């Protein structure tokens, strides 16, 4: 079979089993778009801005576990995609991004729409390639998918000069069955001796905590984690990226930890004697002050990326390997019962945790006549029976969604944790909805974030992806306003959005349904109506209390037990 470069790329995608490609055409990729036009196996989703393409592919990848695929043109097309690539990189999401490039002979001459995208993205991709020979194209695509999806996943960019896709040049095509890269051999099996040591330590723990992160989701290890935690009867706290990896409805779940984590999770971290860190990376938003992080704990850390281990916090028992495999090995050893699990001590620990829990750190003023954002999320959880895919943007609304939507399953909570990218939520929701057309998909956002990728409302109409946009509209960049209130004596420097569009009319002009909700009593009904309109995208503009803050809060650089609690919530001083 002889194909042109453009046809080869499309054929590679078919052979790779790619369902959707998110993109935007332009000069350097026109040959490829022509090849796309002549087939219908790979469905192209036309976004309205290249950032949206990367976020949509990212949302698709997070929800399905399959790689997200993007196609954009050279120069500005490629640079617009950078924010989305960096977002995926920080959260270890498998993306394969194809960028057009100016023809090989003119590379380096400052040609029209030329940008050194391989150079620009080098620090925010797992790997990237500039293909210089069309006979290497298929092999490079295979490598890109292999690298993106194995080990610690991440985005891989493939830059394709226009001259390689010239329809006049046809070469024999064969997609490689497998690929081996001598310099890349991700280890999956944890060291047996290290696992043994970890199991022995877990068995004798008196005040254990399991701290699990996005790695558990990425490795599809939620079941293994849940089984281990239940077998040991250990408390589990999830990072922002790990929510859903352990069921929030299980009594062993003590909530999210870190800057806006629960009182019980952060106190338990501070007082624990054995910490089992699973697929988590000791991010600064989680650890707070490093020198006071888990001061009395022996730390076990399971991660597929050796560079994540002892990067910020020195650990006692490192285990490099795929989280799912290592957890299975651990469980097997524990069940073999060589070392009996000490059960009396954790009982006292549970009593302590339950006392911390009784502080009810997430309480808010539910009698207020203003719409409390927390209430909206609680109602969203109820209306969707806790079973929706929830994407979010970045800020207060993101934290409230993380705190109040109780995720029982992995891959349901889809947000930009590492990079903290405003504008992520809407395109990500479109990607999720394409993957799961029958599922409820909500995008929890704020009036500031949503405007960063609002143009994708048009994409949502074109591809009939009826997502529900839950806009917690308080007129402010809420998290900025909160920091300014706490740390800058309420000097609200440029965090108030004086002019906002009429979101209801805006939604309508994009062909969607818009609803404005200004009273607490209307919240439930509006959400029910939105989800009843199964085939419509609904923009729910909730006018919420502009003074509400996210609690608890550990200010940057403070320790876990140094939390700012909500007004009216008092710490358990007797036990502190």
């Amino acid at each position, binding site marked *: 079979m002889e194909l042109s470069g453009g046809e080869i790329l499309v054929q590679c995608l078919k052979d790779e089993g790619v369902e959707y490609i998110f993109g935007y055409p332009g000069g350097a990729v026109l040959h490829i778009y022509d090849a796309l036009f002549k087939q219908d196996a790979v469905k192209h989703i036309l976004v309205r801005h290249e950032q949206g393409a990367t976020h949509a592919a990212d949302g698709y990848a997070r929800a399905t576990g399959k790689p997200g695929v993007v196609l954009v043109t050279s120069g500005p097309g490629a640079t617009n995609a950078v924010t989305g690539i960096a977002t995926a990189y920080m959260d270890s999401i498998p993306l394969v991004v194809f960028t057009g490039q100016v023809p090989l002979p003119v590379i380096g001459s400052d040609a029209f729409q030329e940008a050194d995208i*391989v*150079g620009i993205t*080098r*620090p925010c991709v*797992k*790997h990237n390639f*500039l293909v210089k020979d069309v006979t290497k194209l298929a092999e490079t695509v295979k490598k890109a998918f292999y*690298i993106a999806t194995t080990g610690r996943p991440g985005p891989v960019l493939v830059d394709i000069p226009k001259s390689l896709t010239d329809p006049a040049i046809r070469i024999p095509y064969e997609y490689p069955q497998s690929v081996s*890269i*001598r*310099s*890349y051999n991700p280890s999956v099996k944890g060291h047996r001796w290290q696992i043994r040591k970890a199991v022995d330590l877990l068995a004798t723990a008196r005040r254990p905590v399991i701290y699990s992160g996005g790695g558990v989701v990425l490795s599809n290890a939620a079941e293994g984690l849940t089984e281990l935690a239940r077998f040991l009867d250990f408390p589990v706290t999830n990072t922002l990226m790990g929510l859903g990896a352990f069921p929030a409805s299980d009594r062993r779940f003590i909530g999210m930890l870190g800057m806006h984590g629960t009182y019980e999770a952060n106190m338990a971290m501070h007082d624990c004697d054995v910490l089992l860190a699973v697929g988590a990376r000791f991010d600064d938003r989680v650890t707070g002050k490093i020198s006071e992080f888990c001061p009395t704990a022996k730390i076990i850390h399971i991660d597929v*990326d*050796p*560079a994540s*281990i*002892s*990067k910020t916090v*020195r650990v006692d028992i490192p285990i490099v390997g795929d989280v799912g495999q290592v957890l299975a090995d651990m469980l097997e050893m524990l069940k073999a019962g060589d070392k009996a699990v000490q059960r009396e001590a954790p009982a006292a620990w549970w009593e302590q945790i339950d006392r911390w829990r009784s502080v009810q750190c997430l309480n808010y003023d539910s009698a207020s006549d203003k719409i409390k954002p927390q209430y909206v999320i609680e109602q969203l959880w109820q209306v969707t029976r806790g079973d929706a895919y929830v994407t979010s943007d970045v800020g207060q609304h993101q934290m409230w969604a993380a705190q109040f939507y109780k995720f029982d399953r992995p891959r349901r909570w889809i947000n930009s944790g590492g990079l903290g990218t405003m504008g992520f939520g809407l395109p990500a929701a479109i990607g999720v909805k394409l993957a799961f057309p029958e599922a409820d998909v909500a995008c929890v956002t704020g009036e500031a974030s949503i405007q960063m990728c609002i143009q994708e409302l048009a994409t949502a109409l074109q591809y009939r992806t009826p997502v529900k946009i839950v806009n917690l509209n308080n007129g402010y960049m809420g998290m900025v306003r909160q920091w300014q209130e706490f740390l800058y004596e309420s000097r609200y420097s440029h965090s108030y959005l004086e002019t906002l569009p009429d979101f209801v009319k805006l939604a309508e002009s994009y062909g969607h349904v818009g609803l404005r909700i200004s009273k607490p009593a209307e919240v439930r009904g509006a959400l029910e109506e939105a989800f009843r309109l199964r085939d419509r995208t609904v923009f729910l503009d909730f006018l919420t209390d502009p003074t509400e803050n996210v609690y608890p809060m550990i200010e940057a650089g403070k320790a876990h037990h140094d939390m700012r609690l909500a007004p009216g919530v008092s710490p358990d001083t007797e036990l502190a």
Partner: protein
Amino acid sequence: MRHIISILIENESGALSRVAGLFSARGYNIESLTVAPTQDPSLSRMTLVTLGSDDIIEQITKQLNKLIDVVKLIDISESSHIERELMLVKVRAVNGLREEVKRLTDIFRGNILDVTASTYVVEVTGEKSKLDAFIQTVGEDNIIEVVRSGATGILRGERGLSL
């Protein structure tokens, strides 16, 4: 602590900038960096001299290993090794200095590669400290130009860095 890290890396365009970019992005020090193809033209060997605490060096080696183009690496300064650097020095050679520099070059087991009425070009190889000592001994005032290759190194004995 000063560490010498030897790296086998795919001989591909962009590989060097991946390494250099890693160091600047993560704020690590590079004292020197040399790179050239090996006897296997698909591989380059890089010698990177860096400064840092044990924790930093551990992160540097892990982060380097994470680069897809890095095939293998070793911190040769952790074992018995040989370090060499090449230096070319253009020295003012007039009056009494002509004889003095010639004598110092012999002591440092260097070679004079170029002679003019007023200058020598001297070649010296050795460890960093030896080259530093030569410059100091000749005297900075007498030196017109210095070019140093940066350190390269190899492990002693059977052990080594190869595929």
